[in-house]
């Protein structure tokens, strides 16, 4: 499981499908955003696209 170093989006690819940045497999935590418009957690984390995100990526 990889995650984007910039936006923390979880993907299997080597580059992020959202922002095109590099990904890393050193991932901690999991945040699944189902409804970014109503979710306060997503707003706090600065997420506006539905999907799976890591909490920290190194």
């Amino acid at each position: 499981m990889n995650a984007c170093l910039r936006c923390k989006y979880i993907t299997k690819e080597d580059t992020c499908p959202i922002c095109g940045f590099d990904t890393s497999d050193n991932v901690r935590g999991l945040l699944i955003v189902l409804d970014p418009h109503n979710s306060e957690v997503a707003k706090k984390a600065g997420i506006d696209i539905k999907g799976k995100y890591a909490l920290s990526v190194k």
Partner: protein
Amino acid sequence: MIFAVRTTTGQEKNVAESLASRAEKENLEVFSILATEDLKGYILIEAANKGALDELVRKSFKVKGIVPGETSVNELDHLLTPTKIIEHIDKGDVVELVGGPFKGERARVTRVDKHKEEITLELIDAAVPIPITVGIEQVKIISKQD
């Protein structure tokens, strides 16, 4: 509204993913699901109301129970923005090595590289002070410099 539910320890991410796919399939008013290593045995679910949560965890054998009460997003600040351990380490601190060939030894920090997330140490018990550079994940802080 954010609720905590109890799950099997070590299965937090699997449970979160299975609950997320179920919420999507049944079109429940669940906004987000959070699973973190810092909170073993629990996952946090943000839902529109308690009814949506009850509906989500009903029949799910992986969920062991719902924690009474709810929490607010402000209380999750430290989970959403984890501070890195490198931010807390300064020159002069005493650390213990928890991995690598010097596991169990104590050392004093002589240099901190925040970009590479590496620190340079001098072993306290060594007769001759030899600087060694290790990754930040190999140490834990014992005491801070006064």
